[in-house]
């Protein structure tokens, strides 16, 4: 397969997953902002932007983090490369370039999302509420994902799509948790308060995992259980364990098909071993923020290795 084709497939997955994450982020933000702000902590919206690394760009264009502006920035703004509109447009554009590597169902799903986005953009903003927008993104992300799973040949292209998905998803799980733990609760005394628990469940809800969590654990929502669920539990579809295992699996299939291992496989295995070899206690001892930061860095390092080995076309 052409390296450029693999690269396009990989980015289709990353963009779709990123659109999904941004929509979830919007949902977390709007829910948390429904809390009375009597506690005197910083604006939650600002914290969200901080966590995703988009705060500076936002401040420059819009100034104060007002909800309406944040919605525009995160959903519609084409100047923001991570906005839902930018991501869906980029995913569809990548899809158009590699039409021959996709089934018509996958193309249809990408193209439909794009066409509907254009219709949404034409609608009067006051008639488009946030809930509808976030639902819309989740639905289309699921449709693309479903078309890929149901119709695509299980060849190297399928593996590169999945590699993109798992990398992006692990990264976003880590970042969403980090929002909660590091940014939203800058002062230690908030930990364990009622506010703390409310935010944890909002986070679960945003990941579409609230019910799953209760089925898996039951009882009270605690920081330890949530960390276990989102980091260590291989049953959780968004956990770092699941994402790392997915990366090991799909990179392994690529290596087998090509009859050659690269640095990427070794790095993926190391990432998985790190998750599998730790405990919630150990994570809290290290500091959740420090642990997550390390995961994000290692995953970025893996992404670089994948790019060098397969996507850049520089491998001789």
């Amino acid at each position, binding site marked *: *397969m*052409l*390296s*450029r*084709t*693999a690269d396009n497939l990989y980015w289709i997955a990353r963009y779709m997953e990123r659109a999904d994450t941004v929509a979830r982020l919007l949902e977390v933000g709007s829910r948390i902002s429904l809390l009375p702000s009597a506690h005197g902590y910083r604006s939650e919206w600002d914290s969200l932007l901080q966590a995703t690394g988009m705060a500076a760009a936002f401040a420059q264009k819009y100034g104060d983090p007002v909800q309406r502006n944040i919605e525009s920035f995160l959903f519609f703004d084409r100047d923001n490369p991570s906005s839902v509109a930018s991501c869906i447009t980029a995913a569809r*554009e990548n899809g*158009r*370039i590699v*039409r*021959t590597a996709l089934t*018509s169902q996958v*193309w*249809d799903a990408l*193209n439909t999302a794009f066409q509907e986005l254009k219709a949404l953009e034409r609608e009067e903003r006051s008639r488009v509420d946030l809930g509808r927008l976030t639902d819309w993104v989740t639905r289309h992300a699921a449709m693309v994902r479903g078309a890929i799973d149901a119709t695509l040949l299980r060849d*190297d292209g399928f593996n*590169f799509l999945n590699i993109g998905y798992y990398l992006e998803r692990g990264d976003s799980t880590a970042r969403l948790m980090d929002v909660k733990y590091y940014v939203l609760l800058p002062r230690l005394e908030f930990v364990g308060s009622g506010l703390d628990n409310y935010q944890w469940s909002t986070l679960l809800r945003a990941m579409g995992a609230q019910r799953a969590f209760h089925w898996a654990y039951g009882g009270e929502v605690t920081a330890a259980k949530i960390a276990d669920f989102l980091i260590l539990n291989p049953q959780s579809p968004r956990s770092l364990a699941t994402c790392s295992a997915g990366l090991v699996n799909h990179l392994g299939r*690529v290596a087998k098909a*090509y009859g*050659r291992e690269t640095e990427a496989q070794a790095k993926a295995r190391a990432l998985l071993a790190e998750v599998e070899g730790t405990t919630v206690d150990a994570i809290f001892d290290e500091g959740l923020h420090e642990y997550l930061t390390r995961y994000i860095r290692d995953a970025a390092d893996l992404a670089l290795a994948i790019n060098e080995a*397969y*996507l*850049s*076309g*520089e*491998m*001789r």
Partner: protein
Amino acid sequence: MAQFNEMYQGTEVRAPYGRLQDWVAAMPQELRSLKQAEAEALFRRIGITFAVYGEGGDPDRLIPFDMFPRVFAAAEWARLEKGIKQRARALNAFLVDVYGRGEIIRAGRIPGRLVYQNEAYEKAVVGFVPPKGVYSHIVGIDIVRTGPDQFYVLEDNCRTPSGVSYMLESREIMMRMFPVLFRENRIEPVDGYSEKLRRTLASVAPKKCKGEPTVVILTPGHFNSAYYEHSLLADLMGVELVEGQDLFVDGEYCYMRTTEGPRRVDVIYRRIDDAYLDPLCFRPDSMLGIPGLMDVYRSGGVTICSAPGAGVADDKAIYTYVPDMVRFYLGEEPILQNVPTWQCGKTEDLAYVLEKLPELVVKEVHGSGGYGMLVGPKSSREEVERFRAKIVEDPGNYIAQPTLALSTVPTFVEEGVAPRHVDLRPYCLVGDRIELVPGGLTRVALKEGSLVVNSSQGGGVKDTWVLAE
């Protein structure tokens, strides 16, 4: 001016269109609208769109598709086919000649300056004979009709003629929407095109290639207006669709960058201009292209289709001499006629053209896509005068032809069915043999009375049928 209607002779229906008479009569307006919407939805769904240069607007614009087919009888096609193949052979012989000894020029049949000083003449390939002596592997010949047996060649396209995807997709859509038509009429299939194209490209593999050649299509990228066609052909042939950045030269070969490392490429069907092939050879300022490609090409490491330099044969100034090429190289009389053409660069021709300007069609020598042309009888006095000034300023840049009474084919229009002017572009494949699928691209001028069929100027397309014996 009497126009030849390909379906009706007075009230008589010409034989090839016999069964279409009942078909169209039995189609109520509602069904027609329904089918038209269905066709459009299908086209949009498969993503076959056309971006019009210089208009801005929607890059996903559809080319209008007209459901009324254009039909040729077996005998009519047999003659066309012979004429097209003959012309494709002559054009290739000419190319080999002008990059070699230049016999036709020595014999005084074509002025040397028209060839050697032509912008499209590539000095970089002088003396090089491409595999099987083929320069133009896909020859698109634009043909118009003025009577039952009167066919004229409007122009030749020896570089990278586009539009074949419309031939293929129009047929797909017609078969899907009107299967009964295909049961009642015995219509020659066109879907062998991609397999024939693949075989043609493989047959001109370079001499250093041993075993099954690796063929690729080279596209300028997804912003190109014909990108859909490039990806369709790659898909149908099962070959990679590459951009310049995917290819590189190492030693005496060209490779593509794959996830498994470099893979050698033997035949490149390029859909980009000569100028963008190799910045070392043609345009040092170009970011596109593959540095060193021409060296590999000239040393037989890779075949480029069409061959660099093929453009000199389809230049509008050279066009006038194609019938002479047929006689000179093949020793045959041309089966297809040229449209009489005046070269504004010649003093006596210029005088005639300026005198008769309101009656003529004038084109730029290097123009394409229906841009920068004058259709005298359809233009206002001011437009004619403005064009006159342009011709006087640079006569060598223009040729003129009589306004032909192009044939018409019934076409679905707002008010029902009405005759509209058409042309035809068949695609002739030249490799170790010469092949032509029975069909082509019929373009139709949808505006009443209009003679300009280019899709960039509001033209549409029709399915083109060739009936079996």
